[in-house]
């Protein structure tokens, strides 16, 4: 395990953090019924007797959810096993059956790990399937249930499949927690199990955090912080909580195990009412669902189908471009960017150029990528690689190639870039040479520095329409001719 310079909550202290990440699986239908798994519908329109938990209704397992869970398990190096559903019993108005169908002692995925970009390895204890609850909106008061005048319930989310991924308490500081969630999110998106949208609630994080003096081997009392819905909240809440705990210890006060919430506006964590955590969930095997026993063939099939995961992408980059900065590397291995880089490198484009164009121009274009498919991107880069167009032209061409579906070759013509042949280019250089005879003489005499001035004049005259590399070629050719003519 790679060591890492961690930032403790105070001098001589370190964090011990374990994360529970809930991700909504992007199945077509809900976990136990045929209702569409959709976001943003009118409240209570995507519902049926099953996800409303009406008397007499029964759950039926969604095979696609199991499939997604297996893919995530494999991507997290976990053991995929025969699993059992349990009922987690507690009363809450957003939960139509007043129990949640979840997995308890035999989750579908167990004992995996995730390698962070830093090289640190975080254990994954389990990744299990469960159903989501409905959504409560409290009106009046402080937006919390106890002070609300009334509450509204939207059951569209009820029964949406969730995968709860529980890490070991291996995370050692808030930034590392952020790194873990970012990496996990990338994996979930890469295997197609989740859209990874934190802002839409398709990724929700609960954090277990304690602190201890560096060197202490045992864990101290932990606090669970619920519903951290952005990376910013995650880092801030953990930092606040770490400081709070250290202060308690240093003041000799008692630390109690409790569940707290993060108040983003006031930038602090607060305790939830004791009542809410005194739950005995009375887990017992769900009698309505037989165990989920994925067969070995399916698991192996899914294993071979796994896409290239972020850690493997990092490995490829380390081979091709060992000098690349970590920032650029992370930009390039991002899910949206990676297929472009991979295609470019596979097509023989200079890796450094592919990396630069991916990290800069492509990334800028990604939010509105239009018709710029990876093949088209590679086509443009190939022109640059051949020296047919200059960098500034390629940047324009990429932008145009995204919004204008014209074939790249025609697009080049349309933009008036290289329709010019070598002779035309030579003529343009010749014009300049004639206007600056002194400089031309010095250049012929071997003063390479003047080349820049001369080419600059050419560019100034003809602007971005011509390729800098092409102009240089023409200049060299003219010089050769002049020298051989002089002999």
């Amino acid at each position, binding site marked *: 395990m790679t060591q890492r310079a961690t930032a403790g909550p105070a001098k001589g202290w370190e964090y011990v953090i374990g994360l529970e990440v809930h991700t909504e699986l992007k199945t077509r239908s809900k976990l136990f019924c045929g209702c569409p798994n959709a976001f943003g519908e009118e409240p209570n329109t995507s519902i049926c007797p099953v996800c409303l938990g009406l008397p007499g209704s029964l759950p039926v397992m969604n095979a696609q959810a199991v499939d997604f869970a297996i893919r995530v398990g494999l991507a997290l190096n976990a053991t995929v096993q025969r699993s059992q559903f349990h009922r987690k019993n507690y009363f809450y108005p957003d939960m139509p059956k007043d129990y949640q169908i979840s997995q308890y002692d035999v989750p579908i995925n167990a004992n995996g790990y995730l390698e962070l970009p830093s090289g640190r390895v975080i254990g994954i204890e389990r990744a299990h399937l469960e159903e989501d609850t409905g959504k409560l909106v409290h009106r009046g008061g402080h937006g919390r249930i106890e002070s609300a005048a009334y509450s509204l319930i939207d059951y569209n989310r009820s029964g949406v499949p969730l995968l709860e991924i529980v890490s070991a308490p291996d995370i050692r500081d808030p930034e590392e927690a952020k790194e873990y969630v970012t990496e996990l999110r990338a994996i979930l998106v890469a295997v197609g199990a989740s859209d990874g949208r934190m802002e839409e609630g398709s990724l929700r994080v609960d954090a277990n955090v304690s602190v201890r003096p560096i060197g202490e081997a045992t864990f101290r009392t932990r606090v669970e912080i619920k519903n951290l819905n952005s990376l910013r909240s995650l880092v801030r809440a953990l930092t606040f909580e770490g400081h709070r705990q250290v202060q308690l210890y240093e003041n000799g006060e008692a630390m109690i195990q409790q569940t707290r919430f993060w108040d983003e506006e006031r930038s602090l964590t607060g305790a939830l009412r004791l009542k809410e955590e005194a739950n005995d969930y009375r887990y017992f095997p769900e009698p*309505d669902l037989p165990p989920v026993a994925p067969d070995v063939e399916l698991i192996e099939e899914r294993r071979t189908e796994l896409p290239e995961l972020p850690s493997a992408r990092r490995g490829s980059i380390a081979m091709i471009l060992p000098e690349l900065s970590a920032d650029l590397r992370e930009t390039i291995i991002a899910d949206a960017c990676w297929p472009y880089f991979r295609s470019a490198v596979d097509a023989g484009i200079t890796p450094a150029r592919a990396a630069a164009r991916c990290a800069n121009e492509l990334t800028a274009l990604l939010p509105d990528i239009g018709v710029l498919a990876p093949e088209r991107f590679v086509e443009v880069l190939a022109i640059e690689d051949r020296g047919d167009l200059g960098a500034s032209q390629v940047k324009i061409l990429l932008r145009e190639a995204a919004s204008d579906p014209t074939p790249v070759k025609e697009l080049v013509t349309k933009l008036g870039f290289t329709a010019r042949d070598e002779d035309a280019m030579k003529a343009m250089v010749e014009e300049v040479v004639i206007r600056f005879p002194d400089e031309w003489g010095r250049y012929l005499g071997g003063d390479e520095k003047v080349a820049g001035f001369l080419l600059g004049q050419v560019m100034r005259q003809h602007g971005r329409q011509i390729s800098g590399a092409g102009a240089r070629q023409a200049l060299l050719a003219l010089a050769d001719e002049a020298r051989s003519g002089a002999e």
Partner: protein
Amino acid sequence: MNDEILDWGIAELHRRLEAREVSTVEVIDAYQEQIEIQEPEIGAFLTLDLDAARSTATAQDTRRSRGETLGRMAGVPVALKDNLCTTAFPTTAASRILEGWIPPYNATVVDRLADQDGIVLGKTNLDEFAMGSSTENSAYKITKNPYDLERVPGGSSGGSAAAVASRMALVGLGSDTGGSIRQPAALTGIVGFKPTYGRVSRYGLLAFASSLDQIGPLTASVEDAALVAECIMGHDPRDATSLQEASPLLLGALTEGVRGIRVGIVTNLVEIASPSIQAALLRAADALAQAGALISEISIDELAFGLAAYYVVAPAEASSNLARYDGVRYGLREPGATVEEMMIATRTKGFGPEVKRRIMLGTYALSAGYYDAFYVTAQRVRSLVRSAFDRAYESVDLLLTPTSPTTAFRIGERSADPVEMYRSDICTIPSNLSGDPALSVPAGADPDGLPIGVQLLGPPRSEQLLFRGAYAVEEGLR
């Protein structure tokens, strides 16, 4: 004419309808007349809609006159236990907490009966949420035994049993979690059948104990039970515990007889029954022997532990299944200052004492620190019962037991002593724990004229053999 109509079984009714000797409307009229006479005394129904039944009947007569082929249950008046979801009737499970609730969907069995043109007359009374053995735990009314109005019809499917026994319906559907079809069938002198777990879809059955509940028919004859069973059995994709295989054909097998079939009398269950029931059981065994079955005696001591295991497993599952009745979405809602107070007030007012007792028993059995001692131990006993049956079925094909240790008891007689009430189900509970099929068939009456039922048990998915045995008993005792 009307009395004659009430005597017909399904096959006879079908034949008469096909021959135009009677119209479907006349059939419904006959049952309506019977209901008008009997129902005020018996109190079997919670809701009735005879106008709807008659218009369905009219439609069927029209279809028949156009030459259409109607379903296997055409013209058959059906009574549904009120824990089966119906869009046409409120579904209350005889609880205040669901008073007036009309489900937006039909239970699978209700749809299957409708597909076969069965005509639903109404919904029948039960012990609240099927928790009981006398139908006294209904929040709405007490149903009387047609053979003695001072006595209970058994339970929890007492309404369906009393309706069929008093000829207010030709077919009743019930649910059986610990004997709730078979025990009332025995106490009212009719046939009651609990299929193998998973044979009939539970979709739309208000769950009591999900791993034990099965829906089945209550009918006047073994033949009718076979026909109804054939209509409602079969895989349902909406129930994940539903068996995937094709269902057995029962009607055709009835007359295959029992020659050479080995039947074991379960002596330790016979010993606890009253003398007249013991005698009736021996008559039934004799009828089987006359038909060529090989009778032996067998003691299966583990079955006696079933009762205790059942009263852990069933309340445990019930405590969870009944959590959803919280006043938030449907049914009763009592006011409360907070959500929590509203839920507590609703459940306090909405549930009756027996339901509350079982919710508390089950909650306790699943609680941290008690789970292993109660729930896990009970599951172990359940496996013990399963393996005891497996061992028994190595030497016999079917088992014969009393259905109930006693005939119908007096209303109020066991109300004060829940454990005494629970003992009513000692012979029926083991088949729910094992998931095996079981059937109660009438076997005469005691000196007071109260009906006696005997029970045939078979290994998993042995419905065909079970019905052959039941038919032989019925024929032999006729």
